[in-house]
C-alpha cells in the first residue's frame, strides 16, 4: 500500500537541498556550550529555532536539554533584540542561577545586526544583581556553515573568552570535537591512565548523559569548569581532533572577513601552546597517531591496558577480515567524522565507494586522499551533498553497507542494505549517545558491528541459514 518516495535518477542540479545532510549552526554551538559546567545556552532569536534544536537533541541524547530562547517577536525583529536579550539573561539567571550564560545567535538576529557582545556588556554594566555569571557569545548564522561550524565556533569563543596565559604547566588541552558521550568518557580514562592533568572542551559526557534524578536538575552536573578553561593558555600542548573543523564557515563569505579559528589555533597563536591536530582517533592508524602524540608530550609509554586493547583489536581484524574484504560502503555525515570513518574502513579492506557530507568546506576529498593510503585516490568524496543525492547515487551503485547516522535509514531500507549506525544523530535507536567510536576500544565495537552486519545480511538472505561462521 505504501509507495516509496519517488525515485529520481536525473543528474539535474537541484537548487534546493533535499533532505539535508547537515544541521544548523546554533545546534552545534548549543551542544558545545552544554559541555561547560553550570552553563545555560540561550539561543538569541525566535522561539522555533530553540524548540526545534532542543527536540532534535533530546531525540538523540534521550535527556532533558534545557536551552533558553530570547523569543523574538515582530517588534524585536524590527527594532533589535536588546530588550529581549536582557530579559532573557535576567530570567535565565533568576531561574537557573547559572555559572555561565552562553548566547548563540540565529540567522535572524545576525541578519538584523544585533550586537550581542554589546548587549551583554551593557547588561553587566547596568545590572544590580550580585554575582553575575560569566558570559560567552558565539556568532552562528546558519547561512554560514553547518552545525559543525557552530560547534567549533562555540568552543573557540569559550577559549577566547576565558583562557589566560601564564607559566607553562604540565597539563594538556584536549578538543575532542562533536563525539559521543561515551567517547568523551573513554578519552578521559585514557588521559588519566596516561597520568595527564587535562582540560577537555567541551565535556558534555555527564550533562547530556545523566544518571536518574531524584528531582529535576535545572542544570545537570558535569561539564568543564570555567576555572579549567582559564588554564588552557598555560597548557603544555593542545590536541585537537579533526582536520577540517570549522573551515566550512569560511566558504561563501560575502561581507565578513573575520577568519574563523579553532580554540587550539587561538591558543597556539596567542599563548604559544603547541597544537597537535589530527583526525578523530577511529581505526588503528588514527589511534596510533593520537597515542604517539600523547607519548611525545608526556615522555611516557602507552599504559599496558591499551597495548592489550590494541592487540586484541588487531587480532579481531584477522578473525573478521574475510567477511568484509572488498565490500562496498557508503559513509556519510559531518566532515571530520566521515574522514576518520573512511580511514578506518580503508584500513580494514572495505571499499568506500562514496564519502558524502552536507558540509561546505570543500576539503573532504583532499583529506580523504591524505588519510586513506589503500584506496584514497579512488574514493568519491562529495561536499554539499544531501540524502536524496546519496539515494540517487546508491540506486545505481548499490553499496553493501551504510556507515553513518540514522538519517539514511530510509535509503538503506529501500535498497535492503544493512546500516551500521554511528555518529550523530541516532534517532531510531536507544543508546545512540553512548555509541563508542574512538580509540582502540571504540574501533573494536565498530569493527564487530561492521563484520556482524555483513554476516547477518548473508544469513538473512541465505535460503537455509547457517549457524557457524
Amino acid at each position: 500500500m505504501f509507495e516509496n518516495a519517488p525515485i529520481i535518477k536525473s543528474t539535474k542540479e537541484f537548487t534546493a537541498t533535499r533532505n539535508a545532510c547537515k544541521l544548523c549552526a546554533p545546534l552545534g554551538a548549543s551542544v558545545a556550550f552544554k559541555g561547560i559546567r553550570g552553563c545555560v545556552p540561550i539561543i538569541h532569536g525566535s522561539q522555533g529555532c530553540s524548540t526545534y534544536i532542543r527536540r532534535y537533541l533530546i531525540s538523540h541524547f534521550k535527556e532533558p536539554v534545557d536551552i533558553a530562547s530570547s523569543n523574538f517577536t515582530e517588534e524585536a525583529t524590527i527594532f533589535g533584540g536588546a530588550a529581549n536579550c536582557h530579559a532573557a539573561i535576567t530570567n535565565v539567571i533568576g531561574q537557573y542561577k547559572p555559572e555561565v550564560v552562553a548566547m548563540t545567535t540565529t540567522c535572524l538576529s545576525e541578519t538584523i545586526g544585533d550586537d550581542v557582545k554589546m548587549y551583554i556588556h551593557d547588561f553587566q554594566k547596568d545590572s544590580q544583581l550580585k554575582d553575575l555569571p560569566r558570559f560567552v557569545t558565539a556568532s552562528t548564522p546558519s547561512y554560514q556553515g553547518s552545525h559543525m561550524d557552530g560547534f567549533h565556533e562555540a568552543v573557540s569563543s569559550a577559549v577566547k573568552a576565558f583562557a589566560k596565559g601564564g607559566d607553562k604547566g604540565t597539563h594538556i588541552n584536549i578538543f575532542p570535537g562533536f563525539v559521543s558521550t561515551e567517547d568523551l568518557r573513554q578519552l578521559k580514562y585514557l588521559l588519566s591512565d596516561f597520568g595527564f592533568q587535562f582540560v577537555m572542551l567541551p565535556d558534555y559526557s555527564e550533562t547530556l548523559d545523566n544518571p536518574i534524578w531524584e528531582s529535576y536538575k535545572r542544570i545537570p552536573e558535569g561539564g568543564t569548569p570555567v576555572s579549567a578553561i582559564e588554564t588552557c593558555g598555560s597548557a603544555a600542548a593542545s590536541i585537537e581532533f579533526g582536520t577540517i573543523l570549522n573551515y566550512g564557515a569560511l566558504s561563501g563569505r560575502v561581507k565578513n572577513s573575520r577568519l574563523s579559528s579553532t580554540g587550539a589555533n587561538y591558543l597556539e597563536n596567542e599563548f604559544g601552546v603547541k597544537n597537535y591536530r589530527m583526525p578523530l582517533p577511529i581505526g588503528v592508524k588514527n589511534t596510533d597517531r593520537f597515542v604517539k602524540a600523547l607519548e611525545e608530550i608526556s615522555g611516557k609509554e602507552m599504559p599496558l591496558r591499551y597495548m592489550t586493547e590494541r592487540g586484541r583489536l588487531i587480532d579481531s581484524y584477522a578473525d573478521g577480515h574475510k567477511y568484509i574484504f572488498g565490500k562496498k560502503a557508503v559513509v556519510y555525515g559531518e566532515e571530520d567524522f566521515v574522514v576518520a570513518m573512511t580511514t578506518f574502513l580503508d584500513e580494514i579492506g572495505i571499499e568506500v565507494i562514496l564519502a558524502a557530507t552536507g558540509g561546505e568546506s570543500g576539503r573532504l576529498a583532499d583529506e580523504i586522499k591524505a588519510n586513506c593510503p589503500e584506496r584514497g585516490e579512488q574514493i568519491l568524496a562529495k561536499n554539499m551533498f544531501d540524502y536524496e543525492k546519496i539515494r540517487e547515487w546508491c540506486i545505481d551503485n548499490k553499496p553493501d553497507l551504510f556507515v553513518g547516522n540514522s538519517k539514511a535509514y530510509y535509503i538503506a531500507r529501500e535498497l535492503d542494505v544493512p546500516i551500521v549506525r554511528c555518529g550523530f544523530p541516532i534517532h531510531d535507536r536507544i543508546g545512540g549517545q553512548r555509541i563508542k567510536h574512538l580509540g582502540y576500544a571504540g574501533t573494536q565495537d565498530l569493527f564487530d558491528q561492521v563484520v556482524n552486519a555483513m554476516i547477518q545480511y548473508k544469513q538473512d538472505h541465505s535460503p537455509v541459514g547457517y549457524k557457524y561462521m
Partner: protein
Amino acid sequence: MDAFINDRKNQILTKGKDDATIACGKASVAGSVSQRACVFCGSRVVLYPIADALHLIHGPVGCAAYTWDIRGALSSGPQIHRLSFTTDLKEKEVVFGGEERLYKALISLIETYKPKGAFVYATCIVGVIGDDVEAVCRRVTRETGIDVIPVMSEGFNGTKKDGYKIACGALAKLIGTDTTYEAPEYSINILGDFNLAGELWMLAEYYKKMGVNLVGAMTGDGRIDDIRKAHKAHLNIVQCSGSMIGLAKEMKEKYGIPFMKVSYFGIEDMSDALYEVAKFFKSDEMMEKARTLVKEELSVLLPALAQYRQKLEGKKAAIYVGGAFKAISLVKALRLIGMKTVVVGSQTGNVDDYNLLKEMCDDGTIIVDDSNPNELSEFVKQTGADLFIGGVKERPIAYKLGLGFCDHNHERKEALAGYEGMLNFAKEVYASVCSPVWQFMK
C-alpha cells in the same frame, strides 16, 4: 514556586484554590525554555500531511532539517510530503535576496516530482530580507500550471496558533477551485485530523459504515484535488485541536457549510462524533447504524479494557500537550481506565478550554498554560503523578524523574484515536505505569 518566572504566575492555577481566570494566549517570556515552537511550526504541522504536494521551506537549512519527516502522518499513496526540501539560503542570498534561488528551486523540483501543488513556507529570515515570495509563487504558478501557494509563516510573527491560521488561509485558496464536482448525499469533510499512524483511515471506515461519504480530509492523507472540491460537502467535522476551526468558520461563511467540533479520543467523545453526524443528517437509519457500530466496538473494547483498569485504578496522571481540546479528551479517557488527572496544561489553550478543564478536574489539580521543564517537573513531584502524557520534549523529564510516559503529539507512531486507539492508549499507559523498572528510581 520561588524560582518560577514571575511574569508567569497568572498562567498557573490550582483548582479549588485559585478563583482567577487563567491567563493564556500570551507570547512566551524571553529566557524561558518554552516547549512551544513557532509560526512556521504551526503551518507546517497543518499542511504537512498533504501528500501529493511539494513542501518547500524557504530559508536557511535548520527549519527544514528539524522538521524532516518527524510526524507520523501517513499517506495511502504518494509520499512526497515526507521529503524535506529547502532553499538552504547562504550568505549571498541573505545579502542580495533569495528570490532567484527560490524560483530555480521550485522549477527544478516541480519538473522532477510533478506534484499536484506546492506550498512555499517563508521562515524568519525571509521576512527580514524582504523576498517577495508571493510574486515568485505567482510566476511559478503561471509557468508550470500548478498552484504554488505561499505560506507566509515567518517564525517570529506570533505563535504556533497564528501558524495554524496561515495554513488555513493557504487551504482556503485551494478550496472551491474544482467547480465540476457534485457531492453525493451525506457528504462530509474531516478537518483537523492528521492521519497519525493511520487514524484517519479508522475514522473514515466508521463513517463509511454509517453511510457517510468523505469528500476531503484536511489534512490527514490529504490530496490537492480533494481539497479543491471540499466546498461541496454538506458538513465539516472539525477535530478540535484548534488548528482548523478557523477554516471551518470561513467555509461556513463562504459556502454555507455548517461545522461541528468533535474529538476522537476516548469512547464518549468518539461515539458522540458519530452520533452527532447522524443527528445532523436527521437520518434514523444512519443513527441506527451508528448505534450498532458503537455497540459492536464497545463489546470488544470494554472487556479488553477491564484488565488495564484494574491495574491502573487510582493512579495519577499529568498532561501537557499542544492543544487544550486534546487535554480535555485525555482527562475523560484517563477516567475510563481509572486514572485521575492531577496536572493538565497546554501550549496553546484559550480561556474557554481552561475553564472547561477547571470544571472537569478534581480539586487540587494544577492547570497551566505555556509551561516549561522546570515547572512541569515541579508539578509532577508535588502531585506525585505516576504518568506523564506529553510530547518528545517532555519524555526525558518524565523518565529522568522515574515516571511512566505516553507520547501524544504529532510525532507519535501509535494510533490513539477511536476505539482501537483507546485500547492502544490503555495498553501503552499500562505498559509504562506498571513496568517494574520504576522500582529502582523511587
